[in-house]
Protein backbone atom coordinates (compact mmCIF):
# COMPACT_ATOMS: atom_id res chain seq x y z
CA UNK A 1 0.00 0.00 0.00
CA UNK A 2 1.25 3.46 -0.87
CA UNK A 3 2.31 5.41 2.21
CA UNK A 4 3.38 9.02 2.74
CA UNK A 5 5.96 10.49 5.10
CA UNK A 6 4.59 12.81 7.77
CA UNK A 7 5.78 14.25 11.05
CA UNK A 8 4.71 12.98 14.47
CA UNK A 9 4.78 15.88 16.90
CA UNK A 10 4.63 15.06 20.59
CA UNK A 11 4.09 17.90 23.00
CA UNK A 12 4.24 17.60 26.76
CA UNK A 13 2.63 20.68 28.24
CA UNK A 14 1.37 21.72 31.65
CA UNK A 15 -2.37 21.10 31.98
CA UNK A 16 -3.55 24.65 32.78
CA UNK A 17 -2.63 25.87 29.31
CA UNK A 18 -3.89 22.87 27.37
CA UNK A 19 -7.03 24.59 26.17
CA UNK A 20 -5.10 27.60 24.95
CA UNK A 21 -2.73 25.37 23.05
CA UNK A 22 -5.58 23.47 21.43
CA UNK A 23 -7.22 26.76 20.52
CA UNK A 24 -3.96 27.83 18.92
CA UNK A 25 -3.82 24.59 16.91
CA UNK A 26 -7.40 25.08 15.74
CA UNK A 27 -6.62 28.63 14.75
CA UNK A 28 -3.78 27.29 12.62
CA UNK A 29 -6.13 24.82 10.93
CA UNK A 30 -4.28 21.82 12.23
CA UNK A 31 -6.14 18.84 10.81
CA UNK A 32 -5.90 16.62 13.83
CA UNK A 33 -4.45 15.91 17.23
CA UNK A 34 -5.11 13.63 20.17
CA UNK A 35 -4.58 14.51 23.82
CA UNK A 36 -3.24 11.76 26.07
CA UNK A 37 -3.23 11.87 29.86
CA UNK A 38 0.01 11.64 31.79
CA UNK A 39 0.39 10.20 35.26
CA UNK A 40 3.62 11.58 36.58
CA UNK A 41 6.91 13.00 35.48
CA UNK A 42 10.16 14.66 36.27
CA UNK A 43 11.96 17.40 34.44
CA UNK A 44 15.01 19.45 34.12
CA UNK A 45 14.05 21.63 36.98
CA UNK A 46 13.99 18.59 39.21
CA UNK A 47 10.33 19.06 39.80
CA UNK A 48 8.61 15.71 40.34
CA UNK A 49 4.88 15.65 39.78
CA UNK A 50 2.14 13.06 40.03
CA UNK A 51 -1.52 13.19 39.25
CA UNK A 52 -2.49 11.07 42.20
CA UNK A 53 -5.02 12.63 44.49
CA UNK A 54 -4.76 16.00 42.75
CA UNK A 55 -7.78 18.19 42.32
CA UNK A 56 -6.17 21.11 40.55
CA UNK A 57 -4.54 21.33 37.16
CA UNK A 58 -1.45 23.29 38.11
CA UNK A 59 1.68 21.23 38.30
CA UNK A 60 0.61 18.40 36.04
CA UNK A 61 1.27 17.66 32.39
CA UNK A 62 -0.64 16.26 29.46
CA UNK A 63 0.64 14.94 26.16
CA UNK A 64 -0.54 15.92 22.71
CA UNK A 65 0.19 13.78 19.69
CA UNK A 66 -0.26 15.29 16.26
CA UNK A 67 0.41 13.66 12.91
CA UNK A 68 1.02 16.49 10.51
CA UNK A 69 2.47 17.31 7.13
CA UNK A 70 6.02 18.63 7.27
CA UNK A 71 5.26 21.71 5.17
CA UNK A 72 2.35 22.58 7.40
CA UNK A 73 4.41 22.04 10.52
CA UNK A 74 7.08 24.37 9.20
CA UNK A 75 4.60 27.20 8.83
CA UNK A 76 3.46 27.02 12.42
CA UNK A 77 6.38 25.58 14.33
CA UNK A 78 7.97 28.84 15.42
CA UNK A 79 4.80 30.13 16.96
CA UNK A 80 4.01 26.75 18.49
CA UNK A 81 7.45 26.60 20.00
CA UNK A 82 7.18 30.14 21.35
CA UNK A 83 3.94 29.24 23.04
CA UNK A 84 5.27 26.04 24.61
CA UNK A 85 8.59 27.57 25.63
CA UNK A 86 6.86 30.24 27.65
CA UNK A 87 5.25 27.50 29.76
CA UNK A 88 6.40 24.24 31.28
CA UNK A 89 6.59 22.02 28.24
CA UNK A 90 8.66 20.31 25.58
CA UNK A 91 8.19 19.36 21.93
CA UNK A 92 9.71 16.38 20.15
CA UNK A 93 9.28 15.71 16.45
CA UNK A 94 9.81 12.41 14.70
CA UNK A 95 9.13 10.81 11.34
CA UNK A 96 6.27 8.54 10.53
CA UNK A 97 4.30 7.30 7.55
CA UNK A 98 0.58 7.22 6.91
CA UNK A 99 -1.73 5.95 4.20
CA UNK A 100 -4.05 8.79 3.31
CA UNK A 101 -1.38 11.40 2.69
CA UNK A 102 -3.75 14.18 1.73
CA UNK A 103 -5.60 13.95 5.03
CA UNK A 104 -2.83 15.41 7.20
Amino acid sequence: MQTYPKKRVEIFIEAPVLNRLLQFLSDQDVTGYTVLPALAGRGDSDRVWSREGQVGDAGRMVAIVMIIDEAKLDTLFDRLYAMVARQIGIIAVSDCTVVRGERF
Partner: protein
Amino acid sequence: MADIFALAGANLISPMVLFFALGFAAALARSDLSFPEAAAKTLSLYLLFAIGFKGGAGVAEHGIDLKLGLTLGAGAVLSAAIPLIAFGILRTVTRLSLVDAAAIAAHYGSISIVTFVAATSALASRGIEYEGYMVAVAAIMETPAILVALWLARSVIAERPTMGSDGGLMREIALNGSIVMLTGAFIIGWITGPAGLAEVSGLISDPFKGVLCLFLLDMGLVAGRGMRSSARHLAPPVIGFGLIMPLIGGTLGALTGALLGLSPGGVALLATLSASASYIAVPAAMRVALPEANPSIYLTLSLGVTFPFNLVLGIPLYIALASMLAGG
Protein backbone atom coordinates in the same frame (compact mmCIF):
# COMPACT_ATOMS: atom_id res chain seq x y z
CA MET B 1 -7.92 32.15 76.83
CA ALA B 2 -8.27 28.78 78.48
CA ASP B 3 -11.21 28.47 76.18
CA ILE B 4 -9.07 28.94 73.12
CA PHE B 5 -6.79 26.17 74.21
CA ALA B 6 -9.71 23.88 74.92
CA LEU B 7 -11.09 24.67 71.48
CA ALA B 8 -7.74 24.09 69.82
CA GLY B 9 -7.30 20.87 71.76
CA ALA B 10 -10.71 19.56 70.79
CA ASN B 11 -9.93 20.51 67.21
CA LEU B 12 -6.63 18.67 67.28
CA ILE B 13 -8.28 15.37 68.04
CA SER B 14 -11.20 15.78 65.67
CA PRO B 15 -11.41 13.11 62.96
CA MET B 16 -10.90 15.82 60.30
CA VAL B 17 -7.56 16.98 61.63
CA LEU B 18 -6.44 13.46 62.42
CA PHE B 19 -7.15 12.21 58.92
CA PHE B 20 -5.27 15.13 57.45
CA ALA B 21 -2.37 14.35 59.76
CA LEU B 22 -2.53 10.70 58.76
CA GLY B 23 -2.23 11.64 55.10
CA PHE B 24 0.56 14.08 55.74
CA ALA B 25 2.52 11.58 57.78
CA ALA B 26 1.93 8.78 55.30
CA ALA B 27 3.25 10.93 52.47
CA LEU B 28 6.32 11.97 54.43
CA ALA B 29 6.97 8.32 55.22
CA ARG B 30 6.64 7.59 51.48
CA SER B 31 3.69 5.26 51.84
CA ASP B 32 2.06 4.56 48.49
CA LEU B 33 -1.38 5.34 49.90
CA SER B 34 -3.14 7.57 47.39
CA PHE B 35 -6.52 8.41 46.02
CA PRO B 36 -7.17 8.22 42.30
CA GLU B 37 -7.28 11.67 40.74
CA ALA B 38 -10.88 11.03 39.65
CA ALA B 39 -11.85 10.30 43.25
CA ALA B 40 -10.21 13.46 44.56
CA LYS B 41 -11.95 15.57 41.96
CA THR B 42 -15.28 13.94 42.64
CA LEU B 43 -14.97 14.38 46.38
CA SER B 44 -14.17 18.02 45.81
CA LEU B 45 -17.21 18.47 43.55
CA TYR B 46 -19.30 16.77 46.19
CA LEU B 47 -18.16 19.19 48.87
CA LEU B 48 -18.90 22.20 46.66
CA PHE B 49 -22.29 20.78 45.78
CA ALA B 50 -23.19 20.08 49.39
CA ILE B 51 -21.93 23.30 50.92
CA GLY B 52 -23.43 25.40 48.14
CA PHE B 53 -26.81 23.73 48.32
CA LYS B 54 -27.00 23.94 52.09
CA GLY B 55 -26.03 27.60 52.01
CA GLY B 56 -28.73 28.37 49.48
CA ALA B 57 -31.34 26.40 51.37
CA GLY B 58 -30.33 28.30 54.47
CA VAL B 59 -30.93 31.60 52.72
CA ALA B 60 -34.30 30.33 51.51
CA GLU B 61 -35.26 29.47 55.05
CA HIS B 62 -34.01 32.55 56.86
CA GLY B 63 -34.61 35.06 54.11
CA ILE B 64 -32.04 37.52 52.91
CA ASP B 65 -30.55 40.02 55.14
CA LEU B 66 -29.82 43.55 54.14
CA LYS B 67 -26.29 42.54 55.09
CA LEU B 68 -26.02 40.15 52.16
CA GLY B 69 -25.05 42.83 49.67
CA LEU B 70 -22.72 44.52 52.11
CA THR B 71 -20.98 41.28 53.00
CA LEU B 72 -20.52 40.36 49.35
CA GLY B 73 -18.98 43.76 48.75
CA ALA B 74 -16.79 43.48 51.81
CA GLY B 75 -15.63 40.04 50.65
CA ALA B 76 -14.60 41.44 47.29
CA VAL B 77 -12.71 44.27 48.98
CA LEU B 78 -10.92 41.87 51.33
CA SER B 79 -9.97 39.66 48.40
CA ALA B 80 -8.50 42.68 46.64
CA ALA B 81 -6.83 44.25 49.67
CA ILE B 82 -5.18 41.19 51.18
CA PRO B 83 -2.88 40.63 48.16
CA LEU B 84 -1.54 44.17 48.57
CA ILE B 85 -0.61 43.48 52.16
CA ALA B 86 0.79 40.08 51.28
CA PHE B 87 2.84 41.51 48.44
CA GLY B 88 4.22 44.25 50.67
CA ILE B 89 5.29 41.76 53.30
CA LEU B 90 6.80 39.35 50.81
CA ARG B 91 8.84 42.05 49.10
CA THR B 92 10.08 43.28 52.46
CA VAL B 93 10.93 40.12 54.33
CA THR B 94 11.76 37.65 51.56
CA ARG B 95 14.02 37.72 48.53
CA LEU B 96 11.33 36.51 46.17
CA SER B 97 11.13 38.17 42.77
CA LEU B 98 8.34 40.61 42.02
CA VAL B 99 6.46 38.07 39.94
CA ASP B 100 6.74 35.30 42.53
CA ALA B 101 5.55 37.69 45.21
CA ALA B 102 2.61 38.82 43.09
CA ALA B 103 1.61 35.23 42.34
CA ILE B 104 1.74 34.26 46.00
CA ALA B 105 -0.23 37.37 46.94
CA ALA B 106 -3.04 36.25 44.62
CA HIS B 107 -3.33 32.96 46.49
CA TYR B 108 -3.79 34.62 49.86
CA GLY B 109 -6.36 37.10 48.66
CA SER B 110 -8.37 34.29 47.14
CA ILE B 111 -9.80 31.46 49.20
CA SER B 112 -9.58 27.75 49.90
CA ILE B 113 -13.02 26.22 49.83
CA VAL B 114 -11.97 23.16 51.81
CA THR B 115 -10.74 25.36 54.61
CA PHE B 116 -14.13 27.04 54.50
CA VAL B 117 -15.91 23.68 54.58
CA ALA B 118 -13.77 22.53 57.49
CA ALA B 119 -14.66 25.71 59.35
CA THR B 120 -18.40 25.20 58.75
CA SER B 121 -17.99 21.69 60.04
CA ALA B 122 -16.15 22.91 63.14
CA LEU B 123 -18.94 25.45 63.70
CA ALA B 124 -21.55 22.74 63.35
CA SER B 125 -19.79 20.56 65.94
CA ARG B 126 -19.93 23.50 68.36
CA GLY B 127 -23.56 24.22 67.50
CA ILE B 128 -22.77 27.68 66.11
CA GLU B 129 -25.00 28.91 63.25
CA TYR B 130 -23.87 31.04 60.34
CA GLU B 131 -25.43 32.99 57.52
CA GLY B 132 -26.15 30.73 54.54
CA TYR B 133 -24.98 33.39 52.13
CA MET B 134 -21.41 33.08 53.35
CA VAL B 135 -21.18 30.52 50.55
CA ALA B 136 -21.81 33.28 48.05
CA VAL B 137 -19.20 35.40 49.77
CA ALA B 138 -16.75 32.53 49.33
CA ALA B 139 -17.53 32.42 45.62
CA ILE B 140 -17.08 36.15 45.21
CA MET B 141 -13.75 36.20 47.00
CA GLU B 142 -12.13 33.78 44.55
CA THR B 143 -11.45 36.27 41.79
CA PRO B 144 -10.58 39.86 42.78
CA ALA B 145 -7.24 38.80 44.20
CA ILE B 146 -6.16 37.50 40.81
CA LEU B 147 -6.82 40.83 39.14
CA VAL B 148 -4.88 42.68 41.81
CA ALA B 149 -1.96 40.29 41.41
CA LEU B 150 -1.87 40.88 37.67
CA TRP B 151 -1.79 44.59 38.38
CA LEU B 152 1.05 44.09 40.85
CA ALA B 153 2.96 42.21 38.18
CA ARG B 154 2.08 44.68 35.44
CA SER B 155 5.71 45.57 34.79
CA VAL B 156 6.56 41.95 34.00
CA ILE B 157 3.49 41.55 31.82
CA ALA B 158 4.30 44.73 29.93
CA GLU B 159 7.72 43.38 28.98
CA ARG B 160 6.27 40.37 27.22
CA PRO B 161 6.08 40.28 23.45
CA THR B 162 2.48 41.05 22.59
CA MET B 163 0.68 37.88 21.74
CA GLY B 164 -2.82 39.03 21.18
CA SER B 165 -5.28 40.04 23.83
CA ASP B 166 -6.21 37.34 26.27
CA GLY B 167 -9.82 38.13 26.88
CA GLY B 168 -10.36 34.46 27.61
CA LEU B 169 -8.60 34.60 30.93
CA MET B 170 -11.22 36.63 32.76
CA ARG B 171 -14.04 34.43 31.53
CA GLU B 172 -12.09 31.35 32.49
CA ILE B 173 -11.44 32.61 35.99
CA ALA B 174 -15.00 33.76 36.53
CA LEU B 175 -16.46 30.52 35.19
CA ASN B 176 -14.01 28.08 36.66
CA GLY B 177 -15.56 24.80 37.69
CA SER B 178 -15.45 25.39 41.44
CA ILE B 179 -17.18 28.74 41.24
CA VAL B 180 -19.87 27.43 38.92
CA MET B 181 -20.53 24.40 41.10
CA LEU B 182 -20.61 26.39 44.31
CA THR B 183 -22.72 29.23 42.98
CA GLY B 184 -24.98 26.97 40.96
CA ALA B 185 -25.72 24.70 43.90
CA PHE B 186 -26.23 27.77 46.09
CA ILE B 187 -28.81 29.22 43.71
CA ILE B 188 -30.58 25.89 43.28
CA GLY B 189 -30.62 25.43 47.03
CA TRP B 190 -32.11 28.87 47.34
CA ILE B 191 -34.77 28.27 44.69
CA THR B 192 -35.80 24.85 45.93
CA GLY B 193 -35.45 25.71 49.60
CA PRO B 194 -36.03 23.32 52.49
CA ALA B 195 -38.12 21.02 50.27
CA GLY B 196 -35.23 20.70 47.87
CA LEU B 197 -32.85 20.16 50.74
CA ALA B 198 -35.05 17.36 52.06
CA GLU B 199 -34.79 15.62 48.70
CA VAL B 200 -31.02 15.67 48.52
CA SER B 201 -30.05 15.60 52.18
CA GLY B 202 -29.52 11.84 52.12
CA LEU B 203 -26.55 12.64 49.91
CA ILE B 204 -25.36 16.00 51.14
CA SER B 205 -26.00 15.88 54.88
CA ASP B 206 -25.60 12.40 56.31
CA PRO B 207 -22.33 11.36 54.72
CA PHE B 208 -20.90 14.90 54.62
CA LYS B 209 -18.56 14.75 57.58
CA GLY B 210 -17.18 11.39 56.54
CA VAL B 211 -16.52 12.55 53.01
CA LEU B 212 -14.78 15.60 54.38
CA CYS B 213 -12.50 13.30 56.40
CA LEU B 214 -11.66 11.28 53.30
CA PHE B 215 -10.96 14.42 51.34
CA LEU B 216 -8.74 15.79 54.09
CA LEU B 217 -6.85 12.53 54.11
CA ASP B 218 -6.26 13.01 50.40
CA MET B 219 -5.19 16.61 50.97
CA GLY B 220 -2.80 15.48 53.65
CA LEU B 221 -1.27 13.04 51.19
CA VAL B 222 -0.93 15.66 48.49
CA ALA B 223 0.38 18.31 50.89
CA GLY B 224 2.84 15.89 52.41
CA ARG B 225 4.09 14.81 49.00
CA GLY B 226 4.43 18.45 48.02
CA MET B 227 6.45 19.21 51.14
CA ARG B 228 8.66 16.21 50.60
CA SER B 229 9.52 17.12 47.04
CA SER B 230 9.47 20.91 47.24
CA ALA B 231 10.10 22.09 50.78
CA ARG B 232 13.58 23.09 49.66
CA HIS B 233 12.00 25.74 47.43
CA LEU B 234 10.73 27.53 50.52
CA ALA B 235 13.22 29.76 52.32
CA PRO B 236 12.49 30.19 56.05
CA PRO B 237 11.12 33.75 55.64
CA VAL B 238 8.70 32.43 53.05
CA ILE B 239 7.52 29.71 55.42
CA GLY B 240 7.17 32.37 58.10
CA PHE B 241 4.99 34.36 55.73
CA GLY B 242 2.80 31.28 55.20
CA LEU B 243 2.17 31.09 58.95
CA ILE B 244 1.75 34.79 59.70
CA MET B 245 -0.27 35.87 56.70
CA PRO B 246 -3.35 33.79 57.63
CA LEU B 247 -3.37 35.45 61.03
CA ILE B 248 -3.30 38.88 59.41
CA GLY B 249 -5.95 37.96 56.86
CA GLY B 250 -8.03 36.22 59.52
CA THR B 251 -7.93 39.22 61.82
CA LEU B 252 -8.93 41.56 59.00
CA GLY B 253 -11.75 39.25 58.04
CA ALA B 254 -12.97 38.90 61.61
CA LEU B 255 -12.93 42.66 62.19
CA THR B 256 -14.78 43.27 58.95
CA GLY B 257 -17.35 40.65 59.84
CA ALA B 258 -17.89 42.16 63.27
CA LEU B 259 -18.26 45.63 61.76
CA LEU B 260 -20.89 44.27 59.39
CA GLY B 261 -22.73 42.82 62.34
CA LEU B 262 -22.54 39.22 61.19
CA SER B 263 -23.36 36.43 63.59
CA PRO B 264 -20.39 34.85 65.41
CA GLY B 265 -20.47 31.99 62.92
CA GLY B 266 -20.48 34.41 60.02
CA VAL B 267 -17.58 36.35 61.49
CA ALA B 268 -15.59 33.15 61.94
CA LEU B 269 -16.24 32.17 58.34
CA LEU B 270 -15.27 35.57 56.94
CA ALA B 271 -12.09 35.34 58.98
CA THR B 272 -11.45 31.85 57.65
CA LEU B 273 -12.00 32.90 54.06
CA SER B 274 -9.66 35.83 54.46
CA ALA B 275 -7.07 33.67 56.15
CA SER B 276 -7.19 30.85 53.66
CA ALA B 277 -5.10 30.57 50.52
CA SER B 278 -6.28 29.11 47.23
CA TYR B 279 -4.60 25.97 46.00
CA ILE B 280 -6.72 24.97 43.01
CA ALA B 281 -8.13 27.89 41.05
CA VAL B 282 -5.41 30.47 41.58
CA PRO B 283 -2.45 28.20 40.81
CA ALA B 284 -4.05 27.26 37.49
CA ALA B 285 -4.78 30.90 36.71
CA MET B 286 -1.21 31.87 37.58
CA ARG B 287 0.20 29.27 35.19
CA VAL B 288 -1.74 30.98 32.44
CA ALA B 289 -1.38 34.61 33.46
CA LEU B 290 2.01 34.66 35.18
CA PRO B 291 3.94 31.67 33.84
CA GLU B 292 7.15 33.36 34.96
CA ALA B 293 6.30 32.68 38.59
CA ASN B 294 7.59 29.44 40.09
CA PRO B 295 4.69 27.09 40.86
CA SER B 296 6.76 25.02 43.27
CA ILE B 297 6.79 27.98 45.61
CA TYR B 298 3.18 29.03 45.61
CA LEU B 299 1.68 25.56 45.49
CA THR B 300 3.84 24.27 48.30
CA LEU B 301 3.36 27.32 50.45
CA SER B 302 -0.40 27.36 50.10
CA LEU B 303 -1.03 23.65 50.40
CA GLY B 304 1.87 22.53 52.52
CA VAL B 305 2.11 25.37 55.02
CA THR B 306 -0.95 27.60 55.18
CA PHE B 307 -3.62 24.97 54.68
CA PRO B 308 -2.42 22.77 57.55
CA PHE B 309 -1.92 25.82 59.74
CA ASN B 310 -5.48 26.96 59.19
CA LEU B 311 -6.92 23.50 59.60
CA VAL B 312 -5.14 22.73 62.82
CA LEU B 313 -4.72 26.08 64.58
CA GLY B 314 -6.31 28.80 62.49
CA ILE B 315 -9.92 27.67 62.49
CA PRO B 316 -10.26 27.32 66.28
CA LEU B 317 -8.51 30.68 66.63
CA TYR B 318 -10.86 32.40 64.18
CA ILE B 319 -13.85 30.90 65.96
CA ALA B 320 -12.56 32.09 69.30
CA LEU B 321 -11.85 35.53 67.89
CA ALA B 322 -15.31 35.66 66.38
CA SER B 323 -16.93 34.79 69.70
CA MET B 324 -14.98 37.58 71.34
CA LEU B 325 -15.81 40.14 68.67
CA ALA B 326 -19.39 39.21 67.92
CA GLY B 327 -20.46 37.98 71.33
CA GLY B 328 -21.76 34.47 71.29
